[in-house]
């Protein structure tokens, strides 16, 4: 019970810190790349306060229940994703021996929730965003599954705790060089960012979130950042050795590595172009999926050698 | 949590699925009924495995097969719906009294 409480406290800390840091980091990147703008450490709080002062508008005949559930669900799936990440040996909030599959289940629920978020307002642009996201979000999960199976091979376990422990000598990012890049692309898709932002993109004036206002908008934006934290923590555990590291306590390493992955994802989201849907589908099925097969094959050969 | 309780829940899910499969006009809803029946089956399979098989792994295998069957049912079902819809523009059961042409 004590370890559970400790792990839970660390989870809340990582989540809150991560959300704030992600918002600031996003500001830093866009300032550096666009050459103007300001970065305030408190800016994320100010921005969300603006939404909270605003009225929550209703569209015509919305699906109110699903609208609420999609936002709340997206946030809680982000937190559950984070909960399988070990903050130290045997220090995970959810200690399942199938936690990698559990994270896979979270990934597929995310597609459902983003779709619902676009469906519920009963408006054309958000619905287009929802459709497009499903078209891209489902196939991009396939490479991610192969990549996750590949990291499970050296650990001989589907438990993220064992996967971290298996990286004692060498991190998976080195042992399986193709894994992390592919997984980062999935992260862009899960967090609706940059090249994989088919749901909330500029060409749809905000897509699924175009009709969000007031608290709904604040909730959705916070949930997106929370998802970034959850994803980054999983990626750091699966590829960067999670809590492993010298001197500092394990959970500090988890935080540091999570923030590094987060910075990479945010940077990629500002720098990579978004392909039209048909081209992206071609890229996923014809290039990314075969690469993920290679990754799996490589992991198998290394395990046998 | 006893085997009887689990099997009764499974029976309830199966009954609901049967009702749905028989009462719905639309193909897609009909498939939902079938899926619901398989849902009950899956629960029963896992229940039998956990309570009467002493954890013999074949029980889990059965559950995996049920899931594979669901996937096959869904994929072929949708493909048929699309094929029928292309030809007939029908998406309800009454729309295809005949399978000809």
């Amino acid at each position, binding site marked *: 019970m004590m370890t559970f409480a400790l792990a839970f406290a660390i989870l809340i800390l990582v989540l809150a810190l991560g959300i704030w840091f992600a918002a600031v980091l996003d500001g830093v990147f866009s300032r550096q790349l666009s050459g103007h703008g300001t970065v305030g450490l408190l800016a994320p709080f100010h921005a969300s306060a603006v939404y909270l002062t605003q009225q929550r508008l209703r569209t015509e005949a919305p699906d109110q229940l699903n609208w609420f559930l999609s936002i709340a669900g997206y946030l809680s799936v982000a937190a559950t994703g984070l909960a399988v990440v070990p903050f130290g040996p045997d220090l995970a909030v959810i200690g399942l021996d199938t936690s990698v599959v559990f994270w896979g289940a979270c990934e597929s629920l995310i597609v459902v929730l983003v779709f619902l978020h676009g469906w519920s307002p009963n408006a054309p642009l958000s619905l287009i965003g929802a459709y497009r996201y*499903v078209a891209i979000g489902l196939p991009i999960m396939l490479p991610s599954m192969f990549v996750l199976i590949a990291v499970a091979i050296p650990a001989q376990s589907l438990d993220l705790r064992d996967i971290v422990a298996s990286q004692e000598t060498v991190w998976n990012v080195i042992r399986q060089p193709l894994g992390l890049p592919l997984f980062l692309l999935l992260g862009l898709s899960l967090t609706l960012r940059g090249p994989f932002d088919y749901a909330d993109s500029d060409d749809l004036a905000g897509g699924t979130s175009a009709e969000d206002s007031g608290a709904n908008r604040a909730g959705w934006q916070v949930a997106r950042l929370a998802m970034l934290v959850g994803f980054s923590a999983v990626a750091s555990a699966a590829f960067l050795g999670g809590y492993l590291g010298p001197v500092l306590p394990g959970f500090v390493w988890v935080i540091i590595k999570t923030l590094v992955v987060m910075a990479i994802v945010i940077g990629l989201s500002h720098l990579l172009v978004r392909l039209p849907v048909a081209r992206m589908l071609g890229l996923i099925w014809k290039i990314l999926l075969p690469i993920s097969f290679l990754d799996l094959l490589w992991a198998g050969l290394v395990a046998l050698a | 949590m006893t085997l009887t309780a689990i099997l009764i829940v499974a029976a309830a899910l199966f009954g609901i699925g049967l009702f749905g499969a028989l009462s719905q006009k639309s193909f897609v809803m009909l498939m939902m009924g079938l899926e619901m029946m398989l849902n009950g089956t899956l629960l029963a399979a896992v229940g039998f495995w956990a309570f009467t098989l002493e954890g013999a792994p074949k029980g889990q295998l059965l559950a995996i097969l049920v899931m594979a069957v669901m996937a096959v049912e869904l994929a072929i079902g949708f493909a048929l719906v699309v094929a029928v819809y292309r030809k007939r523009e029908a998406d309800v059961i009454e*729309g295809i009294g005949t399978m000809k042409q």
Partner: protein
Amino acid sequence: MGRIGGTGMTDLLFYALSALAIWSGWRVFRVDSMIRATFALMVSFTSVGGIAVLMAADYIGVATVFMMAVEMMVMGLFMVMFMMNPAGLNPMQMVHQYKFSIAAGVLGFVGLATAVLLTNFPDNPLPENRDTLRDLGIELLGGSMLIFETAGVTLLATMVGAVALSSRRGRFGDSDAGAAPPGLHPGGEPAGRKVEKGGGHGGHGGHGGHQMNMEKTKQDSSDDPHKGHGNMSETEA
């Protein structure tokens, strides 16, 4: 069994998840919005997955959630595509043989439940601390490998079949052009008797008026095994 915080807690979770599974399962056929129906079914599956995890079938439980979320997503898209009124904003009645179905459903439940209550099941529960995940892995790639691989090949065949069925272009022309039996001489009239136009006219309204009866279909196909099979017979030819 008591995996999570003692037996009492497990029982409580079991009853909660069962209630959720049955209630959301019932909602599937009672809500107007197709999207709600689809995702109610997903909730039902997820609850069953949760119950499986309570029974120490970790992999099965989590994989159920994983598979069903994806399946129901696809199902939801098909709902929106094919249903005339996916959001349920236009009141409508899309059921038939309603009383019969209720009776069948209730009878199915009562029958199965009675069978369950009257049967004396062997009591060989799962031993504590058995590594079920490892069991499953060894079984899948050991003793039952053939079954497992067959399932894999079946899924592959399903994929190929589904693509072939649903695509418009086929070896013998567009699928919506329909199929006709080959002529008796090259380029001639299709052989066999003409089938009168059936099928759903004018959009997917489906408001009766085109019930071709099944009897007739049977007669026709017994008359001549080579007609009415559409593409199948042409492929052989």
